[in-house]
């Protein structure tokens, strides 16, 4: 880049700066361990971990403040491939990946690996089909590309709707996760904790836009990966004597298999296509939807707008996947060691009398939130509570199946489960927070940029001066962030369940338009818009229909479902009961009917998580059909696509930056 700007000395010294930072973080962990050993209370250690890491992010955020449009939207396109890879890793790995992934694998065993495969394999599609071409085009946002390729604001607007619907619920979940972690480790009230998290997010993104988010995400990646690896290495060393968990958990798997046999557990950790309702069809469809969704999520794609060249964009996808892989190939090891520990605990003879000695941590967590640990069907708040719940069921020895752990607590509780010192818990909390904050930053920026760049600048006021554009961007960023924090503070159970829908919505809404836009010249504007509307529409219909209108969905589409005769009979029975009921009983009858309907409402038994299984073929089909039925794209557009396909030459869309 010809014009040297302030901050170039920073980009030139990246290795040194981040090397020192990593060393500093490790020194900080050691310092905390020493303080802890000297008797400093756990609460203080927790505060210092969270406070120190957020302070660092804030410093980076403030140092990266900018008033230049190119810096704000695409970090000046100067982020080297490897650092963009790290930033993408942090952008990608959400609070849910960090906190929930190993827990899901713990609960689902083999079937949970659909998430591991889906969330990594998608990057192959990103690299070969989409990202390098978007970089060549030189857009600031994904809707920008749709507008240029499909000639106009209708395609742009369709893109914004998809972007907003898949990003907003996602960002709410991230802020929720920061709230949960801050509440648990800092002892703050949940609502207060949500707004503390919000402050942490804004300080990273508001002043410096993409530039600040990029450099804080790199810092956050380093914190989260260290925090994830250390407990796994610890467990591996303690249990097998070798500090390479990814290699040694084969031993844990064998331990699990033999203990499962000894305890008569039929559906084991390595059983395929059984647990969690994932038959083979749903297993593979989920992998497909997650992969295609990955290749369509705007907050991921826009990271590749920041590399200096198309070549670097490609290399950067490879680096991203490598950095993501480091966490995702550790997660199954984490899960296996945790499960092995639990099975051994049960094998050693666990009763309500000795549980307080053997596993006091369960009671601590249950006291924090009764839903996290349930034994014999009741919240495991104390030995007495466990004893009464178990004796009511006639259980003397607590079996593995009697202990229900929440997926989200497994990673956070593992340090205690395996008897590690509190310092490790504090570090894991800082890691979880880094994961949630970094993803929230990326998502917020994607939403706010679409609103400010695409709606305000491109659609409302194309003559707006730079300074006003940047102010509008920042105001919108804060508004979206506060709206998301407010929604999160209401603890919306539904929104959290909807997060996993983001992948299907993004896949069905954006993937066909992005891929065909590059790979099939004949795609035209009307085709693209019709395809987006149809694919996204059918996906949304399936998601909402099977979740919120299950009774009606089953009645309309029962002939396409896979409900057994008994299930249908049960449905009719409940329906009759609801029709007959009056007053308050009517409501209860409806709840029962709706709950049952949700288990059977489907097309061919496809889970609603995989709604893109319908949205994708419909989206592609409609897009191709309508394109063929309408006029071919102009000569200019054909040339535009030819230009898009070669890396050389200038970026195609140079933005007015002053």
């Amino acid at each position: 880049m010809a014009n040297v700007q302030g901050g170039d000395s920073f980009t030139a010294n990246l290795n040194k700066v981040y090397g020192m930072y990593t060393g500093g973080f490790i020194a900080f962990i050691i310092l905390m361990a020493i303080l802890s050993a000297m008797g400093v209370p756990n609460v203080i250690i927790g505060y210092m971990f969270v406070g120190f890491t957020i302070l660092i992010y804030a410093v980076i955020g403030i140092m990266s403040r900018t008033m230049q449009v190119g810096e704000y939207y695409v970090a000046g396109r100067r982020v080297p491939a490897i650092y963009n890879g790290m930033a993408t890793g942090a952008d990608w790995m959400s609070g849910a990946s960090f906190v929930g992934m190993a827990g899901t694998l713990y609960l689902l065993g083999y079937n949970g690996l659909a998430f591991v495969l889906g969330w990594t394999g998608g990057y192959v599609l990103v690299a070969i089909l989409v990202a390098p071409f978007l970089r060549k085009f030189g857009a600031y946002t994904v809707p920008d590309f749709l507008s240029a390729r499909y000639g106009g604001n209708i395609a742009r607007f369709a893109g914004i709707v998809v972007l907003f619907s898949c990003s907003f619920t996602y960002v709410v979940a991230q802020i929720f996760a920061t709230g949960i972690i801050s509440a648990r480790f800092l002892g703050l009230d949940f609502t207060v904790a949500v707004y503390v998290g919000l402050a942490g997010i804004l300080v990273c993104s508001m002043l410096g836009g993409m530039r600040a988010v990029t450099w804080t995400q790199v810092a956050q990646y380093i914190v989260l990966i260290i925090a994830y690896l250390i407990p796994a290495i610890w467990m591996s060393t303690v249990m097998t004597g070798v500090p390479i968990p990814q290699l040694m958990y084969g031993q844990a798997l064998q331990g699990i298999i033999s203990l499962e046999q000894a305890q008569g557990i039929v559906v084991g950790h390595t059983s395929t296509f059984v647990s969690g309702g994932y038959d083979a069809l749903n297993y593979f469809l989920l992998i497909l939807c997650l992969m295609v969704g990955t290749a369509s999520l705007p907050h991921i794609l826009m990271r590749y707008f920041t590399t200096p060249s198309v070549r670097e964009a490609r290399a950067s996808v490879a680096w991203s996947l490598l950095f993501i892989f480091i966490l995702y190939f550790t997660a199954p090891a984490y899960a296996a060691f945790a499960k092995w520990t639990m099975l051994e605990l049960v094998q050693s003879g666990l009763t309500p009398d000795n549980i307080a000695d053997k596993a006091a941590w369960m009671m601590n967590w249950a006291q924090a939130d009764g839903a996290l640990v349930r034994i014999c069907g009741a919240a495991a708040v104390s030995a007495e509570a466990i004893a009464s719940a178990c004796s009511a069921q006639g259980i003397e020895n607590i079996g593995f199946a009697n202990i229900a752990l929440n997926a989200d607590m497994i990673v956070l509780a593992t340090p205690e489960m395996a008897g590690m010192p509190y310092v490790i818990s504090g570090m894991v909390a800082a890691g979880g927070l880094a994961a949630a904050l970094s993803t929230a930053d990326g998502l917020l920026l994607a939403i706010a940029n679409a609103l400010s760049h695409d709606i305000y600048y491109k659609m409302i006021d194309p003559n707006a001066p730079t300074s006003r554009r940047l102010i509008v961007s920042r105001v919108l960023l804060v508004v979206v962030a506060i709206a998301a924090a407010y929604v999160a503070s209401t603890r919306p159970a539904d929104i959290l369940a909807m997060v996993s829908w983001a992948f299907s919505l993004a896949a069905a809404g954006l993937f066909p338009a992005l891929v065909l836009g590059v790979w099939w010249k004949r795609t035209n504007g009307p085709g693209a818009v019709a395809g987006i509307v149809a694919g996204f529409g059918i996906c949304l219909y399936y998601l909402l229909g099977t979740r919120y209108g299950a009774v009606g969905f089953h009645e309309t589409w029962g002939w396409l479902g896979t409900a057994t005769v008994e299930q249908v009979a049960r449905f009719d029975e409940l329906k009759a009961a609801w029709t007959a009921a009056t007053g308050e009983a009517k409501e209860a009858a409806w709840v029962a009917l709706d709950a049952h309907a949700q288990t059977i409402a489907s097309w061919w038994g496809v889970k609603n998580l995989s709604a893109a299984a319908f949205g994708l073929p419909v989206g592609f089909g409609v897009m191709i059909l309508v394109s063929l039925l309408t006029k071919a794209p102009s000569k200019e557009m054909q040339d535009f696509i030819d230009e898009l396909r070669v890396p050389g030459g200038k970026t195609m869309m140079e933005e007015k930056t002053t």
Partner: protein
Amino acid sequence: MSTSNRAKHWEKTRGLMFVMLGLWVFFGFVIHMFVNVLNNIVILGFPLGFYMAAQGSLIAFVIMLFVFARKQNAIDEEYGVAED
């Protein structure tokens, strides 16, 4: 760069894309369809079918992407359409 050069460049690019897509289908889906057969082979305690989903395919994806970046770059240079 001439038009025919561009056409050839795109032909090769597309060929590489299909090869990569084929590998993606194989490691993402096909191999996991044989999980129960592969699980009969146990290496270092890992049932092979389980291992492929937990690590094997992931390693393949990472290697594929680094190879892809190199190959595509070579294609770009061969036809003179790479960046300077």
